[in-house]
């Protein structure tokens, strides 16, 4: 059984690997790989290392579809966003948002001005 890594773990691992590959340059996880001049061969090698570390197969085109450290880490960890988990709080907040919006839309416009010419 492979251990499931968190997005933060994967992000940290990628930042260290890229830092080595880029001779010590600090990598911003929100800047595209193209910013760091990473090409298809770099991406291929990085994906292979990542596969070994995670112990599971990764699509070859991963860095095309997920072009930053942040995107790769989020995708591989696939943690549901808090508000998308369907828990009771999220549902209540969603219902409140619907009500607030419909109430606004039913509000008559008081401050009407003549049509523009």
């Amino acid at each position, binding site marked *: 059984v492979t251990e499931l890594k968190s997005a933060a773990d994967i992000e940290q691992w990628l930042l260290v690997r890229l830092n080595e590959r880029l001779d010590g340059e600090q990598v911003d996880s929100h800047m595209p790989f193209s*910013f760091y001049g990473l090409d298809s061969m770099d991406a291929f090698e990085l994906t292979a290392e990542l596969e070994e570390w995670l112990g599971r197969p990764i699509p070859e085109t991963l860095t095309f579809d997920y072009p930053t450290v942040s995107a790769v880490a989020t995708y591989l960890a696939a943690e549901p966003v808090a*508000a998308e988990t369907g828990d009771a709080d999220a549902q209540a907040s969603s219902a409140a948002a619907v009500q607030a919006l419909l109430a606004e839309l039913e509000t008559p416009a008081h401050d009407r001005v003549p049509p523009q010419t």
Partner: protein
Amino acid sequence: VIRKRVLLVNPLPSLSLYSWPDVADVIGRPAYIMNIALPTLVALAPPEVDITIVDEAVEPVPFDADWDLVGVTGYLTQMRRMCEIADEFHRRGRTVAIGGPYASLSPHIVRPHADILFIGEAEVTWPAFLQDFVQGHWQAEYRSAELVDLQSSPIPAIDKLRPLAYALGVVQTSRGCPFECEFCDVIVYLGRKQRYKTPARVLEELEQLYDTGYRSIFLSDDNFTANRQRAAETMLAIREWNQRQAEPVALYTQLSIDVTRDRDLPLLDLCAEAGLKQAFVGIETPNADALREAKKRQNLQGDLIRDVHRIQSRGIMVQAGMIAGFDSDTFDTFGQQFEFLQEAGIPMVLLAMLNALDGTPLRQRLANEGRLKPLLLADAALDTNIIPKQMTNRQLLKGTVWLLNKLYAPEHFLQRLRVFADHLPRVSQRLPVDTEFWERIATSYSSLGPDLRDIPVDSARLFRGHDPHGLKAALVFYRSAVSVLRRWGVWDPRQAALPQPDFRSVA
């Protein structure tokens, strides 16, 4: 007689602001916009072939079914998936044909993935090929000898598409564009002589979509207003038709900003009366030197901000295509782009870095100047094949990522909506509220986190007393733009907080 089983595939585009991901829950339909190329191919086919259409934005590709032929189409944005799908079918021993805009403009990329390659428009070559195919002998390449007369293009067989799978139905009204923007590949593929469908034919296709249930329709046109007389004739017919409908259709199209000249304002009024609610305009940049350099002369005739407000004041939302990375662009251009878009009040901005596409004059010029470079990761979405003139590639990317964050920070999006709403005409009667749509919007936005969940209610407040059509479209788009930036991983509120891109230490 055993009919040939043919599958036609529209591949999923790569992630970009043009690909409209993650909006199915908001629009209540699987995909945003219909592709009518494939239904047109169905209408062109002889009875000996039985065609199935699969749009990957709507449903998965049936790789393992038994097809005599698989055809794949696509634009540049679909190029990677197009080749993957072709290869996947080859592994299963199928015969694969590839055609469409990308195959026509970049045949050298597509050729290794295709048994049969189509170059140019399909109205003549596709039926000729199918004739050959039915007889068992065909060529490896079919090239359209000339630009087709649009009158000869049949009415697309949209009954072959999943019913109401899209937010937007499509009627193609013309092909080609008379302008000569240096970066544009449309004129390379479709030519500078515009070819039109007659108003009667346009109505016939609108009617078909209306009967199928579509109430939002994109008039697919490289430049709807380039020929003023034809635009007026078509819109007069549409106005008369649309006013007869129980539920008038909302129309979208593409036009150029020069339709806001004083003498053309009656045409703009007519467009609004006919039901035009949204116009994609290639504004590209507020940098006049860049517009001159790109030969985008039609954008240099007036004051761009006034021009945008003239369109908005007729109840038409402007959706802008913007480009960063022209030779005349400097470090200051990114900030100027931002200020311009905020002041113009353009909620929907499709920003990309300039790329030198196959076949364009830009490509030729930069090749001569030794300023082309390969794309690093095959897709152009966050990369360019150009070596910029007044900055490095890193600086261009830094500025572009800053601008994307700046534009799509919630407060800046709302600010643009406010300017847009302020320029919209007031509506005197109370418009019915599309409750189902707004419920979907509120639910979807409430899943985006505390910074974004109040956007629908805040923006609805700005639109009190106005037709909310543009707001609805803008909220659908913004939902997808947030998804694109987050899925790319470039969403970064720290960038949005900076007054200018931080070019320090970026060489």
